[in-house]
């Protein structure tokens, strides 16, 4: 053995803190988790993220997602799709029980799919649009019958996207007003115990959970701390163990960079595939010209934006689908930072610099409810545009006025927003570009007014394409077209952070970790 090896080996051992050594899961203990307080505790018909972060511990879905966003069995043990893509059969867990002791069966899945997801869930309506019948040949088999193939279906059936509700509690009631929405009865690793509004929420171990020996934790206490500084302090003081959903501002994360004391998980939100973007109103003067939109795209240094505003927590975006959605991401030909090219394009478009060095003036609207980073990014974009002679006025409206201005009145030049692109472009991306989705007054639709019949055709084909390779080819072409036309400037692939003490561990990394059941989580005992 060389001396050098000895030395490095010794160094590694010495620097490895005792707590970071692999430890076997420990049973017992209560995790104290900070989330933003949810209004209800059921995600089956609503997409509010903080509801999902809490309800996912109590109620479950058919699958969860790994870091590559591939489905992993949850309440569904296995599944198969027929050759024509029109019939998908799920085999369900045989030993799963509701928290009130009733058995979990295929009837629960059929009921929730047809009566809740398909009718009431904002995305579910699209996900399950092609479902014509749900067959339940036996209590543990469900066959979903489709009118056309729907590959995207597999990308939205976790506990956040398609949460399964107990039929015996919900059938025949007004689902949206059922009291169980606030005191849920699920199949998950933890049972609902108590909710003191404005303060905390307590979950306790489900002793009859279908995964033998789990959960490891005795319970979970969710605490609601509205002030960001107070959250950081509470985590430092050891009053809480975990914060989910970027509850610690990026600028404070360096306080938690000591890996022997804290863990910063940046993978938990991959499933949401969120992108910070600037949408351009193509109906406005100058902005209808593709060259002008490309110039604006070339003006923004996305890498600097990530570094300065997001402190490195994020990635420069290249197109409408973030690179974390590995199945469909295509780099294509991004209109990246190139201020010289930007000026050239504006000159070609006839928008030359005036005597004062300015070419034209536009505005950028953002919502006061948007993140701190989003408003800072506005300041960054203003500086970037100033360098190519475009004068940008920043306007911050309250959330309602912002949505009205963008989606009802169309009274804006550029708007910024952080949007979830989701693991499937048909679900999360098509809505922003589809001509049929130019709907006055409907938020988060095609608000740029962009319309391209060729792209419409490609997106519609991709939705009903049952062959993955052919679908990928269509989605690649789709990404190239919107990069070229630039009605939306995709700027930053956002990272959702889960910051915890290093004592908090989880066996299985998940791409939808924000919505993990945490049956595999434990706390290393304090020494």
């Amino acid at each position, binding site marked *: 053995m060389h001396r050098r090896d000895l030395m490095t080996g010794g160094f590694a051992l010495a620097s490895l803190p005792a707590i970071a050594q692999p430890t076997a899961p420990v049973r017992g203990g209560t995790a104290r988790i900070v989330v933003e307080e949810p209004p209800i505790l059921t995600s089956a018909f609503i997409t509010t993220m903080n509801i999902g972060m809490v309800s996912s511990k109590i109620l479950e879905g058919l699958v969860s997602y790994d870091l590559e966003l591939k489905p992993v069995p949850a309440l569904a043990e296995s599944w198969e799709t027929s050759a024509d893509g029109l019939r998908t059969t799920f085999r369900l867990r045989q030993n799963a029980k509701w928290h009130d002791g009733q058995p979990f069966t295929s009837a629960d899945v059929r009921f929730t799919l047809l009566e809740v997801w398909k009718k009431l869930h904002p995305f579910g309506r699209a996900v399950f649009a092609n479902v014509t019948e749900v067959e339940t040949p036996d209590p543990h088999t469900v066959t979903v019958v489709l009118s056309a193939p729907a590959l995207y279906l597999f990308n939205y059936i976790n506990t956040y996207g398609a949460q399964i509700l107990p039929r015996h509690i919900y059938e025949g009631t007004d689902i949206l007003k059922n009291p169980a929405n606030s005191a849920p009865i699920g199949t998950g690793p933890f049972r609902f115990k108590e909710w003191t509004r404005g303060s905390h929420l307590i979950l306790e171990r489900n002793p009859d959970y279908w995964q033998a020996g789990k959960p490891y934790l005795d319970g979970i206490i969710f605490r609601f701390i509205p002030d*960001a*500084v107070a959250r*950081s*302090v509470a985590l430092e003081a050891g009053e809480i163990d975990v914060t989910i959903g970027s509850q610690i*501002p990026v*600028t*404070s994360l*360096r*306080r938690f960079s000591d890996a022997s004391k804290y863990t910063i998980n940046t993978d938990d939100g991959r499933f949401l595939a969120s992108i910070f973007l600037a949408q351009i109103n193509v109906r406005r003067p100058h902005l209808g010209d593709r060259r002008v939109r490309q110039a604006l795209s070339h003006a923004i240094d996305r890498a*600097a934006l990530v570094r*300065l*505003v997001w*402190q490195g927590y994020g990635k420069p975006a290249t197109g409408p689908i973030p690179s974390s959605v590995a199945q469909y991401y295509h780099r294509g030909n991004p209109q990246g930072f190139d201020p010289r090219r930007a000026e050239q394009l504006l000159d070609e478009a006839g928008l030359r610099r005036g005597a004062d060095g300015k070419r034209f003036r536009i505005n950028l609207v953002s919502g*006061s409810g948007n993140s*701190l980073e989003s*408003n*800072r990014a*506005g*300041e*960054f974009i*203003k*500086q970037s545009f*100033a360098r190519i002679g475009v004068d940008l*006025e*920043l*306007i*911050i*409206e*309250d959330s309602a006025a912002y949505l009205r201005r963008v989606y009802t009145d169309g009274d804006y030049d550029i708007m910024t927003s952080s949007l979830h692109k989701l693991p499937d472009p048909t679900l999360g991306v098509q809505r922003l570009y589809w001509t049929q989705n130019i709907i006055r007054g409907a938020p988060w639709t095609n608000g740029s007014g962009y319309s391209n019949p060729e792209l419409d055709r490609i997106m519609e084909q991709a939705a009903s394409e049952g062959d993955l390779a052919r679908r990928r080819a269509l989605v690649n072409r789709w990404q190239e077209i919107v990069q070229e036309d630039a009605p939306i400037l995709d700027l930053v692939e956002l990272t959702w952070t889960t910051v915890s003490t290093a004592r908090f561990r989880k066996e299985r990394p998940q791409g939808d970790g924000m919505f993990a059941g945490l049956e595999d989580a434990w706390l290393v005992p304090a020494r």
Partner: protein
Amino acid sequence: MSASAQPGLLWRLSVNRSAAGGAVLLALILALAIIGPLLWPGDPWEMAAPPMLWPGEDMANPLGTDVMGRDLAAGLVSGARVSLMIGLVSTLIAAGIGTLFGALGGFYGGSVDAVLMRVTELFQTVPSFVLAVVLVAVFRPSVATAVLAIGIVSWPATARLVRAQFLLLREREFVLAGETIGMGTPRLILTQILPNALPPVIAMSTLTIAHAIQTEAALSFLGLGDPNVMSWGTIIGGGREQLAEAWYVCGLPGIAVVVTVLAFNLLGEGLNDALNPHLQRR
């Protein structure tokens, strides 16, 4: 009368320690606002340096940088101009409205006075900062709305003061004499009573400027500032989330606000003493 009073007033101010101190501080701040841009040229919004650089860490940015790598020295200088401008303009608005209400109420008395004073009380009973927040939030946050809102919430005190002066002066001989020789009401108010009622208003306005600067900083701190303009409040608001990591981002503009407010307060107090004949005789 005014020609002979002017040197007297200046002399009285210069021997008044607080007034002299306030004036010197204010002169320094004004100098900073005027010549500062020559010392720190460049756009205060330029994100040129590494973010959250501590003061003194790199002499290219002597006072450090904020969370997005913007030079704090350039920001403070730009903020001085913006904050002083906002203080002055909003105080002019407050003084204008207040003088109008107070003068009419005090001069006419009776039901005119009753109505005007009820309106004044209405504004006085609502906490002024809350009203300012509502006004700025209802209209879009910008320098214009902030100035207007601060002006609108700051006038009642001036109105009360002017009214009291008018009630007092209305019955004085020189006013009655003016009335007797046939002066019209506007002339009576503008040339006879107002000039004599103004000195305390000026003293008070100095304090209003201080309050206006504070209010603007507070509004920006709450995120209700103009995103296109770099004021002290904007810097404080932007640094709020990093208080634990980089307190100086909030601290330096905070000190600037404190010093400026102190300067105006000292000057206002001094003016008040100098202009108050009763105190002077003591």
